[in-house]
């Protein structure tokens, strides 16, 4: 890797570790391997959102041409959000694409992602199913996103109605995550979810 990329990532790594946000456990980074090409990010779900109390893990890949090109970031933790793919974790965020600027750092990227969790852009979606639910049935979107935070991202508070429906599908031999995806994308309508799974 180019020297400038390694030097920068080393500095940024320290910057994140020492930042106020890291002290408050809002963001964090860890090394994966020892060559600074790949890192593991961590962001806390922002307060007053369905992600509150959750911890999301991110995969950060640093390209050779960093910082002239953005790092490649995706969610490892499954999340229900209009701008993040519920399947792959791919993120739709302008600063990770054409709006990247060389003065941005790991810290600003992680903080931007946290801000994205608090302020979704349903008109520029990555996951069309989530975005439609966000616009057409916002209350249900909030419940679903909160339930996903419970199942995947360590939020203690669950939702007994949703877990019963998931368990019901699991009794029919469907995998847990598959059941969750089917129910979430069918607005928790059992019949439609069954139809989608078994057709």
């Amino acid at each position: 890797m180019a020297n400038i990329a390694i030097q920068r990532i080393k500095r940024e790594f320290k910057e994140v570790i020492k930042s106020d946000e890291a002290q408050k456990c809002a963001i964090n980074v860890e090394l994966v391997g020892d060559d600074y090409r790949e890192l593991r990010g961590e962001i806390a779900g922002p307060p007053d959102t369905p992600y509150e109390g959750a911890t999301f893990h991110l995969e950060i890949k640093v390209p050779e041409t960093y910082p002239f090109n953005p790092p490649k970031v995706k969610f490892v933790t499954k999340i229900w959000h209009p701008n993040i793919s519920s399947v792959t974790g791919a993120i739709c965020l302008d600063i990770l694409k054409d709006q990247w600027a060389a003065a941005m750092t790991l810290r600003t990227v992680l903080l931007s992602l946290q801000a994205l969790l608090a302020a979704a852009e349903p008109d520029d979606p990555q996951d069309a199913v989530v975005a439609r639910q966000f616009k057409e049935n916002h209350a249900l979107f909030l419940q679903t996103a909160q339930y996903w935070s419970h199942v995947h991202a360590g939020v203690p508070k669950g939702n007994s109605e949703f877990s019963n429906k998931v368990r019901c599908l699991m009794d029919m031999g469907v995998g847990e995550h598959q059941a969750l995806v089917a129910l979430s994308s069918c607005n928790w309508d059992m019949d439609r979810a069954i139809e989608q799974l078994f057709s």
Partner: protein
Amino acid sequence: MSSEHQNLPVSASLRSPARMATAGPSSTSDSRSESSNNASGGAEGNGEDATDNSNFECNICLDTAKDAVISMCGHLFCWPCLHQWLETRPNNQTCPVCKAAISREKVIPLYGRGSGNQQDPRDKLPPRPPGQRTEPEPHNGFMPGFGFGDGGGFQFHFGIGAFPFGIFTTFNNWGAGAVPPAPGTQQYQEERFLSQVLMAMALLFLLWLILV
């Protein structure tokens, strides 16, 4: 939108001039030794005294700026770093910090007192590739020499222009060509015949030019 961006750098860049102003002109030597300390601290990169040197760090490599330039919006960069950024997005040249429009011509090189080399960093470091420009074909300029300008013969000009060149190229190939065909072969015969025909045509044409 632009005014919003302009506010940002001003507040950021205020810190360093304010600090220098408090040092005052009487304590120049003190501030100089302080800044050299800062530079060595920055090179170590231990970040202990980062509060002081961060004012003079390049916004791209985050190291103490070398061959420093400053944008009109007040942001400091190493010239090599900024140059590479501008090359990465030639069609969308914006400040990496505040996204104001910037260009090579609109950055100001900074010359510290201690630096021996006062050359403009923009000239020294990655030299811009020269423009790829080729001269146009000279055949149009060749014509007036014949004094052939009676207006009606415009199409003739092209014919005449190309014709002598055709002859020359034939002869050039003959003399300096890498592999002239061996005498006696069919190709030799053909080329010889061709050149004789062309020569005859050229002579006829010149004759016609002189007579008409």
